[in-house]
């Protein structure tokens, strides 16, 4: 679960990290009130779950109260990468020239089977860009997942990264960030920029914070922060069914299968057949007819989808249950797009018999995944041309 900047800051503040003052506002009037209260220059920052807000004009320095109001009017309601801005964070502006900007972050790193702490003297840049351009500028340190980051380690990292300022305060902040990350099951925490003022005191100006979805059961107090409207509507619906579903851009073939690996490979096969997958949908192992029915219903709702490719390798999953689910969707009039299926394994013959009974051109079985994918791709592409 991705958190907004203001939410991430709140969590860090709870663990004692020195975070820049700020308040959330939903209207330009509220922004004006906050700016007046602060009585100094502020920054108005769009709170949306996408990167690159700044470049898109979603972050604006506001030297006066009127300017803050004006900027809030521009930013609120703005569309950034398909998401509408409906709230902003108003923070006290900091005189960047009176200090230095750095980067610190902690991510789940499968290569070390733990967290990696990253620190870089070049703050403000996206870490991915930096990693691509000047990887040697980023100091990396494995954090022990049992003990967490210790002060002496934080000091060593700060020294190696070339941070200037009060070494103990900086290390203390990194330790507190690590404590927040471990206690809140973060998969990613970034403080970027980390501002260190002329006195050497660190201050978190912006943050990213993402929590492990598998661990949300122990962070029930944060469930209110989940914003379903920020996700694709079909992803929200899929999560209700418990499907692993990802909407993919520019696709025309709906893809579903049983198991992440087989679905990933199904995407590849559709690509190879000249069409584009419109989604990833794993119905899981041992799915019954109703689950298949729900999956077909979900994929059918996607207007990008012109044909559906179902790829099942039956072990626990029975082919006849898959067939039943698809037939139910057909009977209920939900299924209006061609379904091209490959269902190998258990109860394959029963499935064939059921489909033969229905005998609809919309549902067709193929002996292997390539033929099924090719048929679905052909159907999808010709439906596109027909438009």
């Amino acid at each position, binding site marked *: 679960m991705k958190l907004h900047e203001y939410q991430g800051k709140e969590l860090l503040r709870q663990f004692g990290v020195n975070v820049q003052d700020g308040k959330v506002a939903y209207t330009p009037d509220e922004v004006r009130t906050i700016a007046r209260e602060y009585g100094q220059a502020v920054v108005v920052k769009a709170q949306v779950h996408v990167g690159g807000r700044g470049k898109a004009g979603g972050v604006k320095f506001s030297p006066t109260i009127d300017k803050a109001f004006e900027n809030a009017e521009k930013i609120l309601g703005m569309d950034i990468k398909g998401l509408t801005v409906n709230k902003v964070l108003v923070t006290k502006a900091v005189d960047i020239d009176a200090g230095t900007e750095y980067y610190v972050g902690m991510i*789940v790193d*499968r*290569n070390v*089977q*733990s*967290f990696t702490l990253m620190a870089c003297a070049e703050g403000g840049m996206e*870490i*991915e860009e930096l*990693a*691509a351009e000047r990887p040697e500028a980023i100091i990396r340190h494995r954090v*022990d*997942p*049992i003990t967490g980051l210790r002060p002496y380690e934080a000091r060593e990292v700060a020294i190696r990264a070339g941070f200037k300022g009060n070494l103990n305060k900086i290390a203390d902040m990194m330790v507190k960030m690590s404590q927040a990350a*471990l206690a809140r*099951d973060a*998969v990613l925490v970034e403080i970027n920029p980390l501002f260190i003022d002329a006195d050497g005191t660190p201050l978190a100006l912006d943050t990213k914070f993402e929590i*492990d979805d*598998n*661990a949300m*059961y*122990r962070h029930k107090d944060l469930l209110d922060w989940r914003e379903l409207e920020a996700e694709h509507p079909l992803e929200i619906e899929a999560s209700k069914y418990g499907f*692993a579903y*990802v909407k*993919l*851009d520019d696709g025309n073939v709906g893809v579903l*299968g*049983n*198991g*992440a*690996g*087989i*679905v*990933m*490979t199904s*995407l*590849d*096969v*559709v*690509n*190879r057949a000249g069409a584009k*997958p419109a989604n*990833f949908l*794993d119905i899981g*192992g041992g799915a019954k007819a109703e689950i298949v029915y729900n999956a077909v219903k979900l994929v059918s709702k996607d207007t990008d989808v012109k044909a559906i490719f179902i790829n099942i*390798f*039956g*072990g*626990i999953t029975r082919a006849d249950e898959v067939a039943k689910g698809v037939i139910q969707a057909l009977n209920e009039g939900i299924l209006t797009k061609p379904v091209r299926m490959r269902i*190998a*394994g*258990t109860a394959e013959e029963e499935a064939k018999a059921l489909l033969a009974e229905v005998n609809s051109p919309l549902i067709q079985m193929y002996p*292997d995944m*390539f033929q099924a994918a090719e048929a679905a791709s052909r159907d999808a592409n010709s439906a596109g041309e027909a438009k």
Partner: protein
Amino acid sequence: MGILVNKDSKVIVQGMTGREGASHSRAMKEFGTQVVAGVTPGKGGSDFEGWPVYNSVAEAKAAHGANVSIIFVPPAGAADAVLEAAHAGMPLIILITEGVPTIDMMRAVQEVKALDAISRANGGEGVRLIGGNCPGLVTSGECKVGIMPNKIYSEKGRIGLISRSGTLTYEAAKLLSDAGLGTSTTVGIGGDPVIGTTFADVLPMFEADPDTDAIVLIGEIGGADEEAAAEYIGKHMKKPVIAFISGRSAPAGKRMGHAGAIIMGNVGTPESKLAAFAAVNVPVADTMPQIMDMVKKALNIQN
């Protein structure tokens, strides 16, 4: 023989009395696996379909001389179940559970590795965790400790199979079987970012196994385990390895079902994995059927 498990393995099931644990205990028994007991805290002393159930791994292990444990415990208790088995001195632990919090896995994996090192330093047989979020492992025709379909593993073959994906493993095993090659041992290492055993851990076992002639490695996008495997192969492997990578058309930044299947920045891309295998002359199949052709070619088997 194969690797890790064989007909002499004695298996306990942690979480036997749950829905998944029960059905797979039956399926393993049908396969021929020596399932000796179940563990369900609070149900110790009871009988489950003929199996004795214990409150703890230590009790079950002591009573039956078990040397493998398979875990079907729900996510919140899964890492604790791993630690229980590891501290009870279970040499091989298979974690099937999907959805375990990543930090729990980090801690469990680190602790299991520390226990493994201590055990080996004291002349013990070590402790190995496979998974989580994995289908388990099976030595064809001998012993299945996992959730894969029995049918495709009934006959012994001579190809070792390692995979991050469950269903693709079955697919590959079926194709190998249909092609008359068959599998020696199949190891599903799991789709999570933090797992107990990686490709590079399993490869040396296959290299040393007299019943394995070649290895099929089924990787996917995300992480750098394939790259690490390629490096190991280049340095240490004499037996042929054939690779396959799924998710080659997945976009960056999107998690493809498996928690670990995600391209982050320039880490985990198919390009990197293909390049790593190319550098050590490991052929990478574009489609699964191609795998069979490549295996046959590597082993000089006529079609």
